[in-house]
């Protein structure tokens, strides 16, 4: 584990952790980093319609709790009355055209009384509160915000984590050197966990190339795949070879992390995370 600045760590891990929300269930290559998608981009991708009005929802919350929660539950997920987050009326509603009549007139045959005392504004605010509940379930781009707390969940044992660290990590890392105060550098413990499991770096990888003519070139990799090798050499020049015409030795800084992956139990992972969190 190297110790890059906080800004870089955050950029990488936002990419790794938030990036997953952009991925659709119908997309392969989960490994490819993608630009982070927040609530707005995910909402657009999912076609969820207009964003709930947060201010209106806030006004609607006490009204909902006072008038509706007894039957529909505190977060509209249903009690003796139906779940409204999954309600066809709610999901088809546009500007209270579906919700409005039900609230005003009730559904006598289903046991729901009318609420004539609620004004048009009240109904609007209540409906925005319900739609916010829908948003929080359906828009996975918002999970990073609403579940931020759970991303700091620590169940591991820091003492056992310290033992694991001594045995497996101190060959390369030190809790008073490169990892001093590492626990203060991550906004969420789940980000630190991802980081120590696989500290994929956005910094360029280096390789040494031996050409057919006997030249040896060391530089940073621009492109390396089955067919192409492009390198920026120590002078800053761009070099290119067909992959088949050179021997390439890529510097692997991650061997230690790679070899640990098959060995970890989930408890090991949680213990090490809990231990690293104590380094503040």
């Amino acid at each position: 584990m190297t110790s890059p600045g906080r800004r870089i760590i955050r950029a990488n891990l936002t990419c790794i952790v938030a990036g997953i929300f952009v991925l659709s269930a119908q997309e392969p290559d989960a490994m490819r980093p993608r630009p982070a998608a927040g609530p707005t981009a995910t909402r657009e991708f999912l076609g969820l319609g207009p964003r709930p009005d947060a201010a209106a929802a806030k006004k609607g919350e006490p009204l909902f709790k006072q008038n509706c929660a007894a039957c529909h539950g505190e977060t509209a997920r249903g009690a003796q009355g139906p779940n409204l987050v999954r309600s066809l009326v709610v999901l088809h509603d546009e500007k209270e055209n579906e919700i409005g009549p039900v609230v005003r007139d009730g559904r006598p045959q289903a046991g729901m009384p009318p609420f004539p005392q609620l004004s048009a504004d009240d109904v609007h605010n209540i409906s925005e509160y319900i739609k916010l509940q829908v948003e929080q379930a359906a828009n996975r781009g918002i999970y990073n915000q609403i579940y931020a707390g759970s991303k700091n969940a620590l169940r591991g044992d820091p003492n056992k984590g310290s033992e694991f660290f001594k045995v497996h990590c101190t060959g390369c890392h030190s809790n008073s050197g490169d990892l001093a105060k590492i626990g203060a550098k991550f906004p969420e413990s789940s980000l630190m966990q991802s980081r120590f499991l696989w500290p994929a770096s956005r910094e360029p990888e280096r390789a040494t190339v031996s050409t057919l003519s006997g030249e040896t070139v060391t530089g940073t990799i621009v492109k390396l795949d089955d067919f192409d090798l492009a390198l920026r050499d120590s002078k800053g020049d761009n070099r290119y070879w067909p992959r088949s015409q050179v021997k390439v030795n890529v510097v692997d800084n991650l061997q230690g992390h790679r070899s640990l992956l098959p060995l970890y139990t989930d408890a090991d992972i949680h213990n090490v995370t809990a231990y690293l969190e104590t380094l503040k």
Partner: protein
Amino acid sequence: MIGPLRVLILLTLLIGSLFGQLLDPAALTLFNQPADIWPTYNGDYSGRRFSSLTEINQSNVNLLKIEWAYRISGIGPQRGVGAPTIKSTPLMVNGILYFTIPDHVFAVNALTGALLWQFDFEDHGGHLVGQRGVGMYGNWLYFLTPDGWFISLNAKDGKERWRHKVADEKLQYFTTMSTMIVKDHVLVGVGGDAMDVRGYLEAHDPETGALQWRWWSEPQKMGDPGSESWPNQAAMDHGGGMTWLPGTYDPDLNLLYWGTGNANPVFAGQGRRGANLYTASIVALNADTGKLVWCFQASPHDTHDWDNVETPVLLDAMIDGKPRKLLAQGARCGWFFLLDRTNGQNLVSRPFTGTGNWAKGVDSKGQPVPDPSKEPQVDGSMIDMPAMGATNWPPPSYDPQTELFYLNGTEGYGVAYLYDTSPEPEGYGGGGGGSFDTRSSLFAIDIRTGKVRWKHSHESGMSRNDAGMSGGILTTAGHLLLTGDSGQFVAFDPASGNILWHQRLTAPLSNGPSTYMLNGKQYIIAGAGDTLYALTLAGK
């Protein structure tokens, strides 16, 4: 029995060529479609994506070159997904290629790449994540839109004949499937897992579009067979199991084989204790009634978003000296399965990547038994495959000459997190958090053992984003395996995995390649981003 379509064809043959675009239903076969046609998403009903064509073969593949390219123009970034990307496999019927992207259908001259017509649709919701192509019956094409419209077009000019609503995008259903034609049925599947809805598969009348049958991915009510795998009616009613990729079909058995998607809520399984039938399964359905005949569940009680929609490939092979009718699948849960397709009996279950450590083993039916401790946890649970799955929709291939099953997949380690800890969660309820030491690999799997015979693997690296496999796979009797690798279109030796030929394209391969003979010349068709390529032998 002579159906109305056959009468029409006979009349057509008598009168002369009334319908230039007419697809002869005899071209839809289990294993061997005619050489001059690619009449359905997978070419034939088997899903093997193996072609018996040999003009292009190992001895001359070095002469393969681009004959023409058709680039989609005038369509900007698509909502939420960016630049247009061809994920469809074009049909090729009577010299015309029909292919799609979300909201658009194109017909181009298969000899020249010239556009004949284009159908444009304006969606009002749904996901534009992909569009896999059209189905064809007689002179008619069938197209699905992101917001659940099922549209019939005239193949001659792309004019709309009728449309029917088949899925409600307000409930987060969406439709991306290439419709599939079986006898007088147009099969329509659905996607959608953001809001906990039920999957279903429908058959529609090709002439009127009327619903013929609907199979639900869950039992209808408690007490029905399979309902014992759910805790209550509400969980079952919101249990997921989407049907978004075309299945396969055995005409002799009259069975449709379909993969179903993950259970819902996706990552949070505590409100749906049990195996959650018939999600994340391969199901065999009677093609005329939609009734379930057998089921094999690949990822019981799935909590990792492991849609099991990957093509259930039909193949015949000798097992222990006896000819068997088989079904093979490389599943998103990272396992290879071989089944007897007559009855679903399991012959092979084996992880093709990692150790399958999310499962404790297999049950008496050969189905993996999920380890509860490997379900997503609040502080993460790690498995030795990517959390989001080891493979996905890009079509695999089975080559009867090598008797190997090929797929493009992803390897590594993943952690899955649980976010919504309430007793009855909704939506995704969690997520995959990171993929570690990932590798992109082309697998060649021995069908009899499930063991990986050879593998072409790419190590991960932030500066090596372009390296990796892409798109689907085509194998041919010319001893070629065609797929995408490192942004290029590549021919491998299917026996050894050696690279024989490669061609740079303008984007990584994004669909399943296909092939046919036209005017005495073998064509290979490949979609890469916004461009469709036709390749032929130089000098031919």
